[in-house]
C-alpha cells in the first residue's frame, strides 16, 4: 500500500510530530518527512486511486496521473529544499505552517473531486499567511491580512464554482473549456486570483516581500504553481488565457524594472514567469501544455533558489533595498554564486533549466502560428535577464561598496542553495529527465546550434545595453502603485468612512445610555429615593447620585420589626405544612 500513501498525509503527520519535539530532533523530522513524501510520490504509479465517502459525498482523495505526478514530485522536492533552508529556524509554528502549506498544495494536485480540491485550496491560504505573519513587523501583519482577504475572496469564487459543479452532478475535477458550464467563470476567476493574473495579482507583490526569510521561499513556489496546475487540468486551450498570460509576462517585467526592493522585484518576476505558463495553457496544444508544466517545474526550482539567495542577503545584512546594498559578494561569495545560477536559469541561459522549459513554451507559440505571443514572450525574457540577471545581481552583490559587514549564514542555508543549484543544472544539462515526466509525449531538442546561439545573442545584447545605460538607472527608494491601490486607498477610505459612521453612532448611543444609567442607578441602590423624590421633588439628592447614599438610620426598619416578621412567616409556614400533612 506504500504506493497509495498520500504525500499530504505524511506532511500533516510531520507537522503534528514536530510540535512535540525539541529543536535538534525536530530538524531530523523536517528532513525525513518531506523526503518520505518525495519517495511516496516517486513510487506512485499513474492510475492510483483512493476514494471514500464523507457525509454522503463520494470523495476522491488521491488520483494520480502523469500531470498530477509531475507536479506532485516538484512540490514534494520543494518542501524538502525549503525544509533544509529553514532548518535553523527555532519557531515550530513556522515549520508547521510551511508543512501544512506544502500538504495543501499536494492535496490540490492529487484531489480527484472538487470538494477535496477546495478543502486543500483553503488549507493553503490559511497556513501560508502565517509564513508572512511570523516576520513580526507591522507591515507584515497588515500585508498578511490583505493577503488573507484577497484569498478568501478568490476562495469564495472557487467555492461558488464548486457548488455549481457538484450541484449539477459533476463532482470530478475535469476540463471545463468549451463545456459552457456556468461554473466556468467563477472557477476561472477564483483560480486567477491564485495564479496572480492582473488585475488580481497585487496580493502577491504586496505580501511575498513581507514574509519571513525562509517563508517567502515556500510562498514563491506553491500558490501560483498550484493554480497553474488547475489551469492546465481544467482550462486547457481557453482563449482568454493566451492573452492574459502574454500581458502578464510583460506586466511583471515592466514593474520589476521600476522596483528597488529585492524580494518585490523577484515577486514581479513570478507574475512574469507564471505569464509564460498561463499563455502556454491558452495555446492549448499538447506542446503548449507540456511547456506550461515544464516551465512550472523549472520555475519552482530557480525561483525558490533566487528567493533563497535574496533571503540570505536579508538574513545576513538586514537590508532589502538594492539602494542600501552593494559590494557584499566578497563576504558572501557562495550566495552570490548560487544566486547567479538562479538568475541564469530564469533568464534562459543554455545549460540551465530555464533554457529547456521556456523554449518549449515559445516554440509552442511559434508552431501554433502566434507571432505576437512569440515576440512578446521573447521580449519579456529580455526584461527578465535585465532585472534579475543584471540589475539585482549587480547592485546587490557588486556595485558600490556600502561598507556592510554581513553576519555569517547557517550551514543549512548554503546546503539548500547548493542542492537547488545542482538541480537547476541537472535538469538544464539533461532535459530528458524532465521531458520524460511531462503529461504528453514531447519531441523537442532544445540544444540545437541556432537555438543556443540565438539565446546567447539575446542575453549578450541585453547585457551590452545594460552596461551602456547603467549610469542612467534610478536608484531611489520608492514604491510603485499597483492594483492593490484600489483596496488600499479608495476602498480603505470608504471603509474608514463606514467605520467612522458606525463609531459615531456608537459614541452617541454610549453617551445617551451612560447618562441615563447615571441618573437611574441611585434609585436601584436605594428604592426609598423614589419616595423622597415624591416627597420633595427632584434636586434633593436624587438623580445626580450625590447625597443619596443609603442611610439605615434614616430609612431602615427597626430590628424588632424584621424579627417579628420572620417569626410570623415561620409560624405560617409550619402551620401550613402541618395542615397539609394531616389532611388526606
Amino acid at each position, binding site marked *: 500500500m506504500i504506493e497509495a500513501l498520500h504525500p499530504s498525509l505524511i506532511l500533516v503527520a510531520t507537522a503534528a510530530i514536530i510540535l512535540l519535539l525539541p529543536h535538534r530532533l525536530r530538524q531530523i523530522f523536517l528532513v525525513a518527512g518531506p523526503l518520505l513524501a518525495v519517495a511516496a510520490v516517486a513510487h506512485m504509479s499513474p492510475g492510483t486511486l483512493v476514494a471514500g465517502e464523507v457525509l454522503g459525498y463520494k470523495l476522491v482523495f488521491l488520483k494520480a496521473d502523469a500531470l498530477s505526478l509531475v507536479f506532485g514530485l516538484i512540490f514534494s522536492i520543494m518542501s524538502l529544499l525549503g525544509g533544509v533552508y529553514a532548518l535553523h529556524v527555532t519557531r515550530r509554528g513556522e515549520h508547521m505552517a510551511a508543512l501544512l502549506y506544502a500538504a495543501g498544495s499536494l492535496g490540490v494536485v492529487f484531489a480527484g473531486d472538487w470538494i477535496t480540491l477546495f478543502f486543500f485550496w483553503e488549507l493553503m491560504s490559511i497556513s501560508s499567511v502565517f509564513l508572512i505573519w511570523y516576520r513580526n513587523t507591522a507591515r507584515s501583519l497588515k500585508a498578511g491580512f490583505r493577503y488573507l482577504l484577497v484569498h478568501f475572496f478568490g476562495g469564495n469564487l472557487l467555492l461558488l464554482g464548486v457548488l455549481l459543479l457538484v450541484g449539477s452532478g459533476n463532482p470530478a475535477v475535469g476540463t471545463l473549456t468549451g463545456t459552457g458550464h456556468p461554473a466556468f467563470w467563477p472557477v476561472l476567476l477564483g483560480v486567477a486570483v491564485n495564479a496572480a493574473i492582473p488585475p488580481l495579482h497585487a496580493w502577491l507583490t504586496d505580501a511575498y516581500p513581507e514574509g519571513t526569510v525562509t517563508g517567502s521561499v515556500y510562498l514563491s513556489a506553491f500558490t501560483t504553481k498550484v493554480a497553474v496546475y488547475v489551469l492546465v487540468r481544467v482550462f486547457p486551450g481557453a482563449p482568454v488565457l493566451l492573452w492574459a498570460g502574454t500581458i502578464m509576462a510583460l506586466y511583471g517585467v515592466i514593474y520589476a524594472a*521600476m522596483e528597488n526592493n529585492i524580494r518585490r522585484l523577484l515577486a514581479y518576476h513570478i507574475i512574469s514567469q507564471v505569464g509564460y505558463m498561463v499563455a502556454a495553457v491558452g495555446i492549448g496544444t499538447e506542446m503548449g501544455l507540456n511547456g506550461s508544466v515544464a516551465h512550472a517545474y523549472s520555475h519552482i526550482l530557480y525561483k525558490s533558489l533566487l528567493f533563497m539567495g535574496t533571503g540570505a542577503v536579508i538574513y545576513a545584512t538586514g537590508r532589502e533595498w538594492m539602494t542600501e546594498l552593494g559590494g557584499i559578494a566578497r563576504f558572501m561569495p557562495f550566495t552570490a554564486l548560487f544566486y547567479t545560477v538562479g538568475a541564469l536559469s530564469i533568464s534562459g541561459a543554455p545549460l540551465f533549466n530555464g533554457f529547456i522549459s521556456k523554449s518549449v513554451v515559445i516554440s509552442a507559440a511559434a508552431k501554433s502560428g502566434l507571432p505576437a505571443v512569440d*515576440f512578446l514572450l521573447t*521580449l519579456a525574457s529580455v526584461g527578465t535577464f535585465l532585472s534579475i540577471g543584471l540589475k539585482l545581481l549587480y547592485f546587490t552583490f557588486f556595485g558600490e561598496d556600502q561598507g556592510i559587514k554581513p553576519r555569517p549564514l547557517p550551514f543549512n542555508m548554503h546546503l539548500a542553495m547548493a542542492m537547488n543549484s545542482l538541480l537547476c543544472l541537472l535538469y538544464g544539462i539533461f532535459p530528458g529527465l524532465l521531458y520524460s515526466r511531462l503529461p504528453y509525449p514531447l519531441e523537442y531538442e532544445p540544444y540545437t546550434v*541556432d537555438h543556443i546561439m540565438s539565446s546567447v*545573442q539575446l*542575453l549578450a*545584447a541585453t*547585457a551590452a545595453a545594460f552596461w551602456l545605460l547603467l549610469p542612467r538607472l534610478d536608484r531611489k527608494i520608492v*514604491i510603485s502603485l499597483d492594483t492593490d491601490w484600489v483596496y488600499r486607498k479608495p476602498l480603505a477610505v470608504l471603509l*474608514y468612512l463606514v467605520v467612522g459612521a458606525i463609531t459615531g453612532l456608537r459614541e452617541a448611543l454610549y453617551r445617551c445610555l451612560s447618562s441615563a444609567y447615571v441618573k437611574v442607578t441611585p434609585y436601584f441602590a436605594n428604592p426609598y429615593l423614589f419616595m423622597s423624590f415624591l416627597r420633595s421633588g427632584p434636586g434633593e439628592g436624587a438623580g445626580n447620585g450625590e447625597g443619596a447614599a443609603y442611610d439605615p438610620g434614616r430609612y431602615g426598619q427597626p430590628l424588632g420589626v424584621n424579627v417579628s416578621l420572620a417569626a410570623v412567616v415561620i409560624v405560617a409556614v409550619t402551620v401550613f405544612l402541618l395542615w397539609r400533612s394531616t389532611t388526606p
Partner: protein
Amino acid sequence: MTRGFFYLMVILVVFSTLLEIAFFDPHHVYFPWYLPGFDALIGFIGCTAIIFFAKGLGKRFLQRQETYYEEEEENILKKVMVGNHD
C-alpha cells in the same frame, strides 16, 4: 562594471551571429525574428525600451514615497475617529 565586460558581450554577439549564419536552417524560420542576428536587436532595443518605458511610467504615474500607504492611513484615521471617549 568594467569596460571589458561590454567588449566581451559585443564579441559574444558577433561570434554567435556568425555561428548562426553558418548553421542557418530555413526550416526553423517561423517568423522574421528567427533570422540570424535578430535576437541581438530584440535584446539591445528591447532592453533600452524596457528601461526607458519603465522609467517614464514610474516617474509620471506610479512611483510614490515608501511611506505612502502608512501616512495616509494615519491621516484618515485621525480625521475619521472623532470623539474618542477614552
